[in-house]
């Protein structure tokens, strides 16, 4: 009864494996035809830089922004070779990938996802001669000499996008699709609503989550539910954005993007968005490394790019054709305000949904406070699970 398995099978597998191993051992790795680059040993100062991404490099979102910048840096900085790996999950797999990159000659690694932090830090400690940069926004701490983390004040351009949404909505209902209620997302939702309120005191932001950073079916259902509520501008904090953009397009509504300029997906509906422009930051970091000045530099720490410092890697995406000139002017003026020291999206008075004062009049939230936000501001419709 059941299968009778020839013991022969085990021998067969071993024989096949042995044959294969023999062939592999004898073949040289130099016969690669791939696009990955080997470290060039000619002309001394070539630096191999690795970039690790958590999702697909063609997701029209977060990871594509990283990829595009990595390729830009390869051409704009002399003597730099770039290798990339995408779809690396936030598990031990990233340690392996870093190991592989080092084996391929990488001396600098950019680990570009929040969840890579513990692995990146541990790797940096274990390999003092490799410089590891983590992209994701952590607070200050004691960093090893070869490690740094960087991010940008993401909510700044998000609030500008909110202004565009608030200015163009006819139903006064905006929709926000998010993944998980982490503080950075809450900050984005709040900033979006605050921006909308500044041009439209009646604007409300409805929120729906998908429990996933990129599940297109859930994104579509979230978008559909929001549209059924009468929402006429959609935005999101997901890793990939094409589904939400296309849902807006199909319904003939507006959309504000995040991570990447995806205007081409929906030219009439696209208002604006936040787009990562990592290349200048990557370039600056790499040049600092190449000049041997990394340790002790501002990058050997928790670096936060801001509008006020004129180095925020998240920028305002180009406006779509639907945004009237007067609104564009208003938004750009507000951007100029944020460009000055001391300005903030979160300046009081701001109240939470339940009426409690979040920021008193005349006060401004610190970066640390913003990154531990847990209250939704008045005007946001929907609740967060208690944290």
């Amino acid at each position, binding site marked *: 009864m059941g299968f009778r398995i020839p013991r022969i099978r085990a021998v067969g597998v071993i024989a096949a494996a042995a044959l294969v191993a023999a062939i592999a051992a004898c073949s040289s790795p130099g016969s690669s035809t791939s696009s990955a680059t080997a470290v060039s040993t000619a002309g001394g100062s070539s630096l191999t830089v690795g970039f690790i991404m958590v999702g697909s490099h063609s997701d029209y979102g977060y990871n594509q922004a990283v990829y595009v910048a990595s390729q830009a840096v390869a051409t704009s900085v002399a003597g730099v070779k770039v290798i990339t790996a995408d779809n690396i999950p936030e598990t031990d797999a990233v340690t392996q990938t870093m190991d592989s990159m080092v084996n391929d000659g990488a001396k600098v690694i950019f680990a570009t996802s929040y969840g890579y932090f513990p692995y990146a830090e541990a790797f940096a400690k274990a390999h003092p001669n490799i410089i590891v940069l983590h992209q994701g926004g952590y607070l200050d701490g004691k960093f090893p000499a070869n490690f740094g983390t960087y991010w940008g004040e993401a909510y700044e351009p998000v609030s500008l996008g909110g202004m565009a949404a608030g200015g163009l909505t006819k139903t006064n209902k905006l929709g926000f699709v998010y993944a998980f209620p982490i503080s950075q997302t809450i900050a984005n939702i709040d900033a979006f609503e605050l921006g909308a309120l500044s041009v439209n005191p009646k604007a409300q932001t409805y929120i729906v989550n998908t429990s996933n950073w990129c599940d297109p*079916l859930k994104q579509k259902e979230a978008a559909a539910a929001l549209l059924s509520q009468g929402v006429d501008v959609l935005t999101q904090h997901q890793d990939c954005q094409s589904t939400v953009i296309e849902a807006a397009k199909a319904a003939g509504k507006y959309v504000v993007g995040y991570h990447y300029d995806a205007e081409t997906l929906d030219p009439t509906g696209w208002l604006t968005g936040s787009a990562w422009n990592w290349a200048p930051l990557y370039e600056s970091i790499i040049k600092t490394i190449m000049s041997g000045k990394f340790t002790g530099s501002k990058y050997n720490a928790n670096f936060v790019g801001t509008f006020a410092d004129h180095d925020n890697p998240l920028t305002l995406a180009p406006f779509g054709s639907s945004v009237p000139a007067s609104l564009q002017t208003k938004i750009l003026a507000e951007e100029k305000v944020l460009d000055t020291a001391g300005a903030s999206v979160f300046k009081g008075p701001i109240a939470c949904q339940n009426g409690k004062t979040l920021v008193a009049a005349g006060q401004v939230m610190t970066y640390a406070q913003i990154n531990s936000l847990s209250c939704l501001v008045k005007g946001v419709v929907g609740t967060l699970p208690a944290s």
Partner: protein
Amino acid sequence: MNGLEETMIGGIEGGTAILLPALGELIGERAGVINLGTEGCMLVGALSAFAAASVTGSVVIGILAGLAGGAVCGLLHAWLTVIRRADQLASGLVIWFLALGVTSVYGANYISATAPTLAIINVPGLSKIPWVGPILFEHDALVYTGYLLVAVIWFVFYRTQLGLVLRATGERPEVVAAAGRRPAVIQIAAVTIGAALSGLGGAQLSIGYVGNWFNDMTSGYGFVAVAVVLFATWKPVRVLGGAYLFGMALAATSVLQAHGVSVNQYLLDAAPYLITLIALVTVGRRGSASAPEALSRALARTG
């Protein structure tokens, strides 16, 4: 439009992606073969449909490609289980794994690509019926295909010679053989057609409802389809109910939130699967006992 109506509309749209593979699986299981690779065949169908539609610009070709992709997947399973007599559950799972790998590799170029999607068609006249009209008759072509298929399958199963032979193959293939038919051929056909429907369900996801291709975009819904057939005790109309029930549970998570209802998102996320488990338990022993006999024997032989 109130929350209940939204949930039902979303439930039907998303539920179709479960209904079509479930109907396909129903056909195969009625013939005595279970296909756990339904999830894989859905993925293959979803990618084929998307790629074809994207390249040719035609949704019709996309739908045909979805059917074809699913059918190829089904043929492999049919060959392994009916001709090579391999373990049905193992074969299905291996096919799923292969499909996962193949669609990830070949689908990489289509992530975030655009393809034409199915248009929403309001059925003239019927969609004006108050309350019921917008819920049932304002969908894309594949949703309507789902409705029709349930009726067709019911009719074929219970009112035609073909259906009788199919069901007999699932109960007593030896009797069918003695009567001069070829159960193996019937099983191969059933599994292939069933998998083609799974491919169509995948197409509903990629070019119907969602309009995108992403890795593993079926997220386990193919397995849910298999579970639906089980708790629907192999009856077409119940399969319809079960699939839409699951679809509504999925849609409800977004609808509730958009209405500002405070809910535990993780519980809501798990709810569709929990509901399926509860349904299986409710149907219980009586349900399992009503399985097509050849199927029970195939499942009992595992190990």
